[in-house]
């Protein structure tokens, strides 16, 4: 048996706990979505999406642990780098109107 199957409390395993935590992170992401939609400035939106991206990376990593699929971490890795790229690209775009692209 692996660590993920170990019981934490009341029949819930570490995997269950991690899944619940992932759900928690998603709920936080939904909260953050308000800022992405509301703005008011473009930078606010980019910022919110950047935070959402970091959250998604954590969610992906937690899913990898909870579902015992370590290869999912590769997706998280790709996402972490893309997320950074997106934030830089959009914030550069808002200032230079495509000067960087």
């Amino acid at each position: 048996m692996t660590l993920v199957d170990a019981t934490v409390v009341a029949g819930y395993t570490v995997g269950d706990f991690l899944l619940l935590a992932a759900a928690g992170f998603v709920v936080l992401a939904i909260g953050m979505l308000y800022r992405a939609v509301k703005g008011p400035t473009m930078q606010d939106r980019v910022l919110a999406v950047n935070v959402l991206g970091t959250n998604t990376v954590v969610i992906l990593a937690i899913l990898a642990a909870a579902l015992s699929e370590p290869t999912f971490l590769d997706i998280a890795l790709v996402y972490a780098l893309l997320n950074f790229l997106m934030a830089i690209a959009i914030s550069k775009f808002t200032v230079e109107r495509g000067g960087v692209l």
Partner: protein
Amino acid sequence: MIETLGTLGTVRVGLIVAFTLLGLFFSFVSMVGVLRLPDVYSRAHTASQADTLGAGFGLAAVALAVGWEGAGFKSVLLLFFIFVTNPTAAHAISRAAFEEGIVPWTEGDDRR
């Protein structure tokens, strides 16, 4: 079932739970900050800091859960990336805001 893991395993499970909860807590702080703070600069604080720490704790928990023989090192790599890229992204965003001429909020400003 915890008994079969031995002391080390029990400590590890405890750490996983604690780190996950800490990660959730700091991500929560980050969300509240992003929602409540008055302007893009102060929001960038929580976005870069509380969220980085939250993600850090979350990824530390994942690294513990997956274990080194699994792909824990990828989790550590992720942690490193996040700690390097998050502040840089926050800097880029706030710099873009500054160059667009957004003046930071101060006490008494009615923007909220």
